């Protein structure tokens, strides 16, 4: 039976970042994910913001990891060929008497080490953010805020980890863990895995995994956030990420720039019962629209082309990242709510340290492939570049998705790189993510998936078993 040095449970941004980090060393690593693809948990539905580190409680673990993560993400994005755009953020005050609050946020953030903060005035705002509500009188400007595609961060970390020898097993839900002598026996839907060390980064379900080894002192509460995407035509709605003053439970409803160009408004923050509840609501929409319009009055409901909900895996106020003294070799990474995407690279570094403290020895590989060739998206490159690509491979000229201009070649490549479902293709390429919502390309994407995966079309799913796109072949007349 295969024995691993480290098994990571959960293939979200945290698990994938840890896998890549560990793949630098001479270790046998496996990442186990219950869904059909990585990034199908919390990491697929978030705001994609690389936070600068503002709006965190002073001296919190998440505050420190956020600031470090913001710094580390740049290099990782560069190495992995993920687009990182430093757009900066504005936390906006509407009344003079809110300015002390801005100053307090500034001071707290400075204590965490957030660089470049500045209070800007009305004139600055008018000039640099013309669509912002004219009543805004000042803002805290954090220039280091950035944006990334959250799924691509997961996929590209994972792909690079595999290139460096890590194994990834999807559809491998962990069902039980026992300790035998010096190693763990992990029973999954895909068989047994033995490991000396376990990292539990199972997001919303990290409490369940912890329970399996007898750790019962935390519970993960889902806190829902509904988000609404606007048409790409409105890409230049704002120049920065726009935040209101934060409340006790959340950063509030934001105007977000996303790395693929669609502005986004949201998220709400509402505690829910079920870890499955990804529904959106009329109340959520109303709340988001009214809050967003307060920041940018020209926002038009009719520009919404899509919406979704994500669940923050909340457990208390801070992240829980620790080595379990009662279960030697077991590392808990739980309660990774916002800013978990930002903090992921710093969390990975911290987990390495904790593994070291638990006795794991790290030896660097002689050959570590730090770089990954950037994935090509026709919608981001110049016409000259497109032309030369089409000359090399005709399939770049075969356009499948009309709204986002995605070619057959990009879709085929995404499948070679691991996409198995329609959503997997969408997250990687943007085919079906535009204003027509797959009306045009779904039938085409379906066929390419079936062909490349050598499966009947009837078995192709939206996001895993049970979500088959069609119900069957038509009976022959």
């Amino acid at each position, binding site marked *: 039976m295969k024995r691993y040095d480290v098994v990571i449970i959960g293939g979200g941004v945290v698990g994938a970042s840890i896998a890549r980090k560990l793949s630098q060393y001479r270790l046998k690593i496996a990442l186990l994910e219950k869904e059909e693809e990585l990034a199908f948990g919390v990491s697929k539905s978030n705001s994609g913001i690389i936070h600068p580190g503002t709006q965190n409680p002073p001296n919190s673990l998440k505050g420190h990891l956020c600031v470090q993560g913001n710094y580390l993400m740049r290099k990782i994005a560069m190495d992995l060929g993920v687009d990182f755009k430093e757009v900066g953020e504005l936390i906006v005050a509407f009344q003079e008497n809110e300015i002390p609050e801005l100053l307090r946020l500034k001071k707290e953030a400075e204590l965490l080490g957030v660089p470049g903060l500045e209070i800007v005035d009305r004139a600055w705002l008018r000039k640099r953010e013309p669509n912002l509500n004219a009543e805004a009188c000042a803002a805290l400007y954090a220039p280091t805020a950035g944006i990334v595609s959250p799924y691509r961060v997961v996929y590209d970390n994972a792909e690079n980890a595999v290139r460096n020898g890590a194994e990834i097993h999807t559809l491998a839900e962990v069902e039980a863990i026992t300790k035998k002598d010096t190693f763990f026996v992990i029973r999954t839907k895909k068989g047994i895995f033995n490991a000396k060390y376990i990292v539990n980064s199972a997001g919303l379900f990290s409490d369940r995994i912890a329970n399996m080894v007898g750790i019962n002192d935390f519970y993960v509460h889902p806190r829902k956030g509904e988000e609404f995407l606007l048409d790409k*035509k409105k890409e230049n709605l704002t120049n920065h990420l726009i935040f209101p003053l934060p409340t006790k439970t959340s950063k509030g409803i934001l105007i977000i720039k996303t790395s693929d160009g669609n502005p986004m408004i949201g998220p709400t923050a509402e505690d829910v019962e079920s870890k*499955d509840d*990804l*529904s*959106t*609501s*009329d109340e*959520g*929409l109303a709340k988001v629209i009214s809050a967003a319009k307060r920041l940018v009055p020209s926002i038009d409901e*009719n520009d*919404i*082309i*899509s*919406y*979704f909900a994500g669940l923050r895996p909340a457990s208390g106020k801070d992240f829980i990242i620790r080595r379990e003294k009662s279960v030697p070799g077991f590392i808990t990474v739980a309660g990774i709510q916002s800013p978990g995407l930002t903090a992921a690279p710093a969390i990975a570094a911290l987990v390495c340290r904790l593994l070291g403290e638990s006795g794991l020895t790290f030896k660097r590989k002689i050959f570590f492939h730090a770089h990954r060739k950037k994935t090509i998206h026709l919608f981001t490159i110049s*016409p000259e570049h*497109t*032309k030369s690509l*089409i*000359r090399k491979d*005709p*399939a*770049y*000229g*075969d*356009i499948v998705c*009309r709204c986002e*201009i995605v*070619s057959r070649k990009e879709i085929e490549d995404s499948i070679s790189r691991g996409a198995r479902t*329609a959503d997997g293709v969408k997250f990687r390429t943007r085919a079906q993510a535009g*204003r*027509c*919502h*797959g*009306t*045009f390309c*779904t*039938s085409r994407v*379906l*066929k390419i998936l079936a062909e490349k995966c050598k499966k009947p*079309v*009837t078995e192709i*799913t*939206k*996001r*895993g*078993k*049970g*979500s*088959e*796109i*069609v*119900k*069957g*072949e*038509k*009976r022959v007349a």
Partner: protein
Amino acid sequence: MLRERELIIVGGGPAGMAAAIAAHESGVRDILVLERDYCLGGILNQCIHTGFGIRHFKEVLAGPEYADRYVNQIQSIPEIEISIKSFVVKLTREKVLTYLKPGQMHEVKAKAIIMATGCRERTREMIHIAGTRPSGIFSAGLAQRLMNIDALLPGKEVLVVGSGDIGLIMARRFTLEGAKVKGVVEIAKTTRGLVRNRVQCIEDFNIPIYFSHKISKIYGRNRVEAVDVVQVDDTYKEIQGTLFKVPCDTILISVGLIPENELMEMAGVKLDKKTNSPVSDGLNKTSIPGIFSCGNSFKVYDIVDSVTRDSILAGHLAAEYLKGAK
């Protein structure tokens, strides 16, 4: 140097084909038709039901038959060059077009352009329906394509949202394929579609139709499991106590069409914010001289016969413009 063409027509559906043939009749001798699909005919190819051509051909034809008549005619005219699998990605005010096709990318300048890019369906996202986002939600047109072109059955227990023509026709189509259509839910007091479709597709099959109702929530994590249906008053507000749940595995959305005019928008053609049609001082004209528009991308027509009639005019207009420009 950019290659220059007399007339480029974007879109090889009924509108584009009729415009090309008409322009040729009016004397234009250099015409390029760009079509992104792998064949001409546009949306008619998936409309295998009959009812086309009653006015224009005085015959009752199926969609593909109607298209074929034009395909045969256009292919017999040597001065019309047809380029399929050709996807236009850019259009400028100076009438420079960029298009991609497998293995090639071209930039061409046209003296005149006719945009005949058709329309697209409004989506679930545009009308905001609360609830989950499982598989099993299709626009009526996508369901039609999956069934009639790809020979797949999208679902077995179907609820149709909106009573647009494609939705009504698909209700009948699903029934004929052995699926159960649970009903058609229409927020207005009457059908949006043609009366004949209401009679022949819904009433003849005893499919319940709920006027002044809307769906207010979608259930199901992986696949659609049910929807909430609720009655609305004259201001489209939900009426308390009227909500009922309909179990189903598929939702067809048929809530209207919008002209697909992103390329014209790119070129700076003025579009009506509400209808997405070009703002124009006459049929088939746009705010940029020499750029014409016809068919469903000019405005959404009920029947293809009207598309053909107006597209013929667009062809003549472009020819006249080209004569004037000489």
